[in-house]
């Protein structure tokens, strides 16, 4: 099937099997390997991308379902070369260790901050409840997303990263 998807701001086309998963469209067809696959059963959230701004698990959608829509992956976060506040905050607050869950966590964080500029710990924990991290214990991920909110609001200067 012929599809056309706007990926990180760029229009891309591909001829794909209808059963090709969105995660494989992103990783293999488009070569954006920052999106990871941890379970392919909607459990871990490592494959999270934004579909028209909403976090989705790309292992549980077909690539063809993204036809005519907009997909944002971790590679699209630093649009124009400048890091997104969530990226800065994850580094500053040590919100990652192995980094495998991190793209999904950051994208969920970004989507949350679009809707809620000043989330509480509980808001953040609810938002990342579909994403598993086996390394960090979550505390620093929550701190990082709240720190990103402060950076975005200009309430704090991001330290040099």
């Amino acid at each position, binding site marked *: 099937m012929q599809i056309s998807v706007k990926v990180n701001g760029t229009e891309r086309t591909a001829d794909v099997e209808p059963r090709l998963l969105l995660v494989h469209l992103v990783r293999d067809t488009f070569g954006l390997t*920052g999106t*990871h696959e941890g379970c*392919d059963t909607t459990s871990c959230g490592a494959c999270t991308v934004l579909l028209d701004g909403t976090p989705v698990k790309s292992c549980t959608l077909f690539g063809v379902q993204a036809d005519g829509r907009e997909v944002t*992956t971790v590679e699209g976060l630093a649009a124009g070369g400048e890091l997104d506040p969530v990226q800065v905050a*994850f580094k500053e607050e040590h919100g990652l260790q192995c980094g*495998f869950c*991190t793209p999904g966590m950051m994208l969920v964080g970004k989507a949350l901050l679009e809707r809620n500029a000043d989330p509480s710990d509980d808001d953040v924990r609810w938002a990342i409840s579909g994403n598993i991290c086996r390394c960090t214990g979550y505390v620093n991920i929550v701190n990082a997303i709240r720190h990103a909110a402060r950076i975005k609001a200009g309430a704090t200067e991001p330290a040099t990263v």
Partner: protein
Amino acid sequence: MPTETEEIRGLGHRVKRKEDDRFIRGKGTYIDDIKLPGMLHMAILRSPYAHATITGIDTSKAQALPGVVAVVTGELMAQHNLAWMPTLSGDTQAVLVTDKVRFQGQEVAAVIAEDLYTAKDALELIGVEYEPIEPIVTPQRAMEPNAPVIRTDKEGQDSNHIYHWESGDKDATDKAFAEADRVVALDTFYPRSHPAPVETCGCVADINPATGQATIYMTSQAPHAIRTVFALVAGLPEEKIRIVSPDIGGGFGNKVPVYPGYVVATAASLLIGRPVKWIEDRTENLISTGFARDFHMHGEMALKDDGTRSWPTKGRSMPTHSPRSSRWGCSTSSPAPTTCRLLTSPRTARTRTRRRAAWPIAARSGSLRPPT
């Protein structure tokens, strides 16, 4: 490149990690991100039974599927003397089943194809005839005299008792117990856990047929130990083998052992002359790779009412693993003394005296693996 000089202040001091820059940009290189020219994809067929004899495997339909390059069975591996391999702790482990299945999820066959979807389609076309044998799901059942023996591959193995270890001063401990005013005892169970790193295990095996040089990219926490095992299995000198551990998406001990998938992918790459990638899925990771704990333990302490004596302790424990997930098909993968460290708890309880510990480990339809 500017060098950062930071005052180091010990525990709690924040350090900026070098790797974060690529991780936050999605520029890490994990095992599944590695793509080599001409690379093939492998998928593994696993047994739905915990204990069963295999009476026949029909791979013809799978072989005929367009895009399938090879279907590998235990028989083929045996022709190359690769159906079994040594483990890091001196045991042996089946690579692909030749005689019988010893745990649920054991590797029965593998398909190598041009792409992953084709490889997985082909798995469904392999016909396997199983004759189920009674599965053993508790260590207690495993130790009963009439229980079916799991490790029939081992010469002279006529029961499921495979391990016995004692340390400490037996006579002094017995004496302390004989003289005790009271003895307290505890039976407890330490449940199984699985490390479950978010990135599952996998490898890309690339054997150069011209030079015999083997490069294996692998989610490994122990590349050097793995190189040694590969040298033993393949009969190659270590300098011909290069194990590359790229960025690793969590390990927690799960990525120390050598798993059959690595060996099959490597053998396939050698025979076909193209790189072969194998990435396990989450179900495979949970049912067939290394886990920990699952101990049934019994401990006793001998006490004096007046508190004049220290606390000789005697313990008997049965570290066991439950039936469904294990890689080793009842093989021991890591060195047994690690078990002792956990089980001789008197040391951690600071009762520093003699201790005696002996525990049978029962082989079961899930394998045994002392904890890491």
